[in-house]
């Protein structure tokens, strides 16, 4: 799944920023899985905001590297790991 496809899933979540973390609650059509609430930390929160339908994965990697003052290799690993985790979350809702 690419970043553009993940963007389409964003509208199925309500969110709230708490300090440096982000809570995500999926919009649901039944009472099952009411305990499925997700929390993203600082980097995850930042990446979530950058998934806007315009940024590519490479754009996001570049932004993470700048924002958190890390090398491209580290930023790439963090972004890919986060996007994989996000993919698991959105496809199971």
């Amino acid at each position, binding site marked *: 799944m690419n970043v553009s496809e993940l963007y389409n899933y964003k509208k199925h979540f*309500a969110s*709230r920023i*708490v*300090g440096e*973390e*982000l*809570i995500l*609650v*999926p*919009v*649901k*059509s*039944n*009472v099952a899985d*009411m*305990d499925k*609430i997700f*929390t993203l930390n600082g980097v995850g929160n930042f990446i979530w905001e950058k998934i806007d339908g315009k940024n590519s994965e490479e754009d996001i990697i570049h932004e993470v590297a700048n924002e958190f003052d890390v090398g491209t290799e580290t930023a790439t690993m963090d972004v890919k790991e986060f996007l994989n985790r996000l993919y698991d979350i959105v496809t199971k809702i």
Partner: protein
Amino acid sequence: MERIFLSIAGFTICLIADEDSKIALDDGYFPFVIPGQSNDPDIIIRTKKGIPKELLNKKHLIFEAKNELRKYFSIYQHMESYKFIIYDQQVENKIQQIAILDREYTNWVIYTNPNEEDNNLYPLQYPLGPIVFYYFTVKLDAIMIHASGVFDGLKGRVFSGFSGTGKSTMAELWQKSGSLIINDDRLIIRKRNAGFEIHNTPMFYPDMPKMAPLHSINLIYHSKGNCIKKLSGTEAISRIMTCCIQHDYDKRIIEHQLSFISSITEQIPVYEVGFFPNEKIVDFITDYAG
């Protein structure tokens, strides 16, 4: 035109019946009836005799509450409003009532067949009654939570967790130590002035309306020994939210709940409490949390 006024968790509800009908309430509601009238009720419920066939269609389903054993209710988009189809809990797939709620969560129209024994209309019979209470909290600054609540004369404490975690047991232990049980199953927490309050709601048995100032929220689980840990931030918010009644088909509802729970955690301490079910847990909690 008959009108009955109720006060539940500080919200005023006006029940209105058609001219040729009489409203009846289950025993648990009588302590919440208030005399006189209110010119500005928070919620208005109009009760109509009979269920119109044109409302039986099941188009535009947005939410369902059911498990392997039974259906409780379904919610549909109904023009600019919400339509609730409520199922009889004794007879499978039998429609008990249909209710229409406006988008401001203020005005209900409840269609119900007369009771076979007394020919009266029971608009708030289970499960619609608790559904109506839940939508008070959607409209206003409040949440409804699966929890027990106790009051020691100064402080109200909430004990919450999934089914079987000991909410009723904990409430009984505090009662033995002299506290009042606000309720052992379901509470409304609402904002009032500078703080928060816990309230009981009508149950299937009669109980007086009770409330207490909220001092702490305790998320409990069974343990071989007593232990307590303070929670904060996203962990506190998400753990409380999983204990709340949620109709998460609308982002507005979820965001409202997140915002309110967030405001609670900014003022009220939240603890995770493992407990062994004897009276020692009462002193353990008060020693640690005050």
